[in-house]
């Protein structure tokens, strides 16, 4: 993901569905100025890591 951001000079998505995605904090930070719509799915299997 970092490589992709470097290649394109940053990420500027306006709409994202985050499902089965790691490094969410990096992606959200990259799109801090542009993101308008965000799809969140707490039943995402990767959400398991947010439970103790």
């Amino acid at each position, binding site marked *: 993901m970092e490589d992709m951001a470097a290649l394109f000079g940053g990420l500027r998505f306006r709409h994202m569905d985050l499902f089965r995605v790691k490094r969410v904090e990096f992606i959200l930070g990259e799109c801090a100025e542009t993101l308008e719509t965000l799809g969140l*799915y707490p039943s995402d299997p990767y959400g*398991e890591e947010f439970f*103790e």
Partner: protein
Amino acid sequence: MKKTNPTGRPIVNNRALLQHFNLSRNKSLRTLETTAESIDAADGATFDFFETVLPSITSSAPLDVVVIYKEFDFSIMPHCSWCDSEAVRSCCNWPIPRVSEDVRFQRQFRAFREMHRVRAFRLVLCVDVFDCMVEGGIEALRRFVEAEKVKGGLDYLSQEPLIIFEKRSLRTRFVDQSPGWSMTRAIHASAL
């Protein structure tokens, strides 16, 4: 394995969650989308997820929370000859809900109220189903919204819930299992 508290609800690690889903930097954020299936999580974990994430939204723009309803979120749907095709029937082989539709919607409306308590938003309910099921889906949502309004369960909202739909056809979206959607038409619940 998830730990649970005495009520059986999983314990959410808020610190880990906020580390990943801190939305305070996203100043243009106007819409959060999720699925009714996520809201419907029987263990109540979704409450904790959104109660943690929603307050981190500091965008000054009004926030829409869009809840997407799929075919399997409705118990009664219209049936037509088009649905008899093998492809549709195999695609529509969704699991049978464990609890009744009434109970599931009551649980969802309770979740919306809890979410709104920590961050105000406009509630948008999106019927994202096959073409022939749109009418039944809208009718079902309208029925549940009206029933909730009669009970005063939506009094906390400053605006009427918005009901919108996305028609899907076999030709264009059959193999598309992504949770994405696009708005094609919006209907105010009060106008139905």
